[in-house]
């Protein structure tokens, strides 16, 4: 038995401003301080309990902020297809909280019913693209709405891959009508880990399909003198990622930008300061540029 929701929410569109990812250590701060951010994003799977304090707090916070629901467990890249129970639980969450955006990842995390709790990489093949698109369509149908899919950070590339990641992303959007969540930290991390230039990535992304941008921190791990970037969301946003955000915003005009921080979570004020930096870049980009004006090609910093 669940208590009916006490508030009937209607969809608040996510504004083209800086938001932050709401994490449990900051919930009390949000309830008591109502910090000045334009919107918040939560990991949908953290709110799939039947009831209790977590959902009650989200309901309270939702009254003051537009909400984006970002999934981490749907496993859009799974060969075996999507878990229909999970789709139904997510749909119920969205029906209750009426998020302005719903997003997931171009990745997989479920195989043979086992949930591996990581965003695992897909080979960029025609077969994987077909499977991904089929799953995206199923999710959009189950939710009764368009979703955004996020470009992954990755540590491996597959010998069998035939499609560049940016084309794989663009084609997913083209075939399914889904929007894109452009994570510029992930572009930076993957570009470094696979030694490609981020510029052509931005050039290839259909800008009118980008509904949201993410930034986050990463750390550098040395393997025998070779640096590999680990996307742990546990540090301030790196300068190179701010530069990439600036470049992305120059092309996109104004778009919602989210600051994420998931490990070694600092006090809320640290995140708010990062969100202010993102907001300053949005403000610069939104003055004088028309969305869809792609500008000059970007060169890697």
């Amino acid at each position, binding site marked *: 038995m669940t208590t009916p929701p006490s508030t009937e929410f209607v969809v608040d569109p996510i504004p083209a401003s800086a938001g932050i990812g709401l994490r449990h250590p900051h919930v009390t701060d949000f309830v008591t301080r109502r910090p000045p951010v334009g919107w918040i994003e939560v990991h949908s799977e953290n709110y799939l309990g039947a*009831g*209790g304090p*977590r959902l009650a707090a989200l309901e309270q916070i939702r009254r003051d902020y537009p909400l984006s629901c970002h999934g981490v467990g749907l496993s859009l890249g799974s*060969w075996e297809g999507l*878990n229909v129970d999970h789709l139904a639980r997510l749909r119920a969450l969205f029906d209750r909280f009426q998020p302005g955006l719903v997003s997931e990842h171009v990745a997989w995390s479920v*195989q043979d019913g086992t949930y591996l709790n990581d965003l695992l990489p897909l080979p960029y093949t025609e077969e994987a693209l077909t499977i991904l698109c089929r799953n995206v369509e199923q999710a959009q149908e189950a939710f009764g709405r368009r979703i955004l899919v996020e470009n992954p950070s990755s540590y*491996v590339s597959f*010998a069998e891959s035939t499609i560049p990641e940016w084309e794989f992303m663009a084609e997913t959007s083209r075939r399914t009508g889904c929007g894109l969540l452009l994570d510029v930290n992930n572009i930076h991390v993957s570009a470094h880990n696979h030694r490609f230039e981020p510029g052509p990535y931005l050039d290839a992304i259909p800008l009118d399909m980008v509904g949201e941008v993410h930034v986050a921190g990463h750390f550098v791990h040395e393997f025998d003198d070779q640096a590999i970037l680990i996307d742990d969301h546990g540090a301030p946003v790196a300068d190179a990622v701010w530069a990439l955000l600036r470049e992305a915003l120059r092309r996109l005009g104004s778009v919602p930008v989210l600051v994420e921080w998931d490990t070694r979570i600092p006090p809320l004020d640290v995140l708010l300061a990062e969100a202010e930096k993102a907001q300053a870049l949005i403000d610069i980009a939104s003055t004088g540029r028309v969305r869809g004006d792609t500008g000059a090609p970007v060169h890697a910093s």
Partner: protein
Amino acid sequence: MLRDLQTQFRVGLLGGDAAPALASIENDVITPAQRFGIYRNNVLGSLAGALAAAFPVIERLVGERFFRAAARSFVQQSPPTVPQLLAYGDGFPAFLEAFPPAQSVRYLGDVGRLEWGRVDSMFAADAPALEPSALTSLPPEALADLLFAAHPATRLIRSAQFPIHTIWQVNQPSNPDPRPVDPGLGAEAVLVTRPGLAVETNPVTPGDAVFVQCLLQQQPLAAAAEAALGAEPDFDLQGALAAHLGRGTFSRVMQASR
């Protein structure tokens, strides 16, 4: 094929043979084994971290290193089957009980059940707690046949042997200097409830444990009270009922059909 690749990854990530997965990975800058190892660490580390969040007292009792090793073994043996970390860990107490390196600490399983009861309670459905007026409005002769419906967030954890509440309380992560607890102190039972939005953890007497257990099993009030008195001759029925009303142990009452 994607099916093969995903199968090979799952097997390799959970401690099985990683060679087939490695064969699909490009050898570039660092080795496929190093690259695959990043994912394996993410998978095992994040799931072990989820268990640490659910079982902070177990981690305190066995130490971080032992806990991580035990948790990684559990993850490899029983990975999650639902993509929600808040639902992961119910099998961990039984695993600890059977985990050979933990055999010298016999009470880990029951203390783990107490911690899981708290997690389970926290995410259980919302429901109003039973109002005292639901009892006071009834004629006295109606009480004996009364059936009680547990609140969805109520959990009763009874240890057959160990003082689980004392161990749990003394070994809170916030306690800088826990005193040793004699595991031979005697069996304890714990009632976890969620009267408002906060989870409460209270020890209950042997009679009260029997009383609640009987009511949760849908025995009528008179039978539950009798069983409680059998377990604890001094059992205070009035006091126990008042305490359960305050703690939100139950959500509804109804008359048993004769």
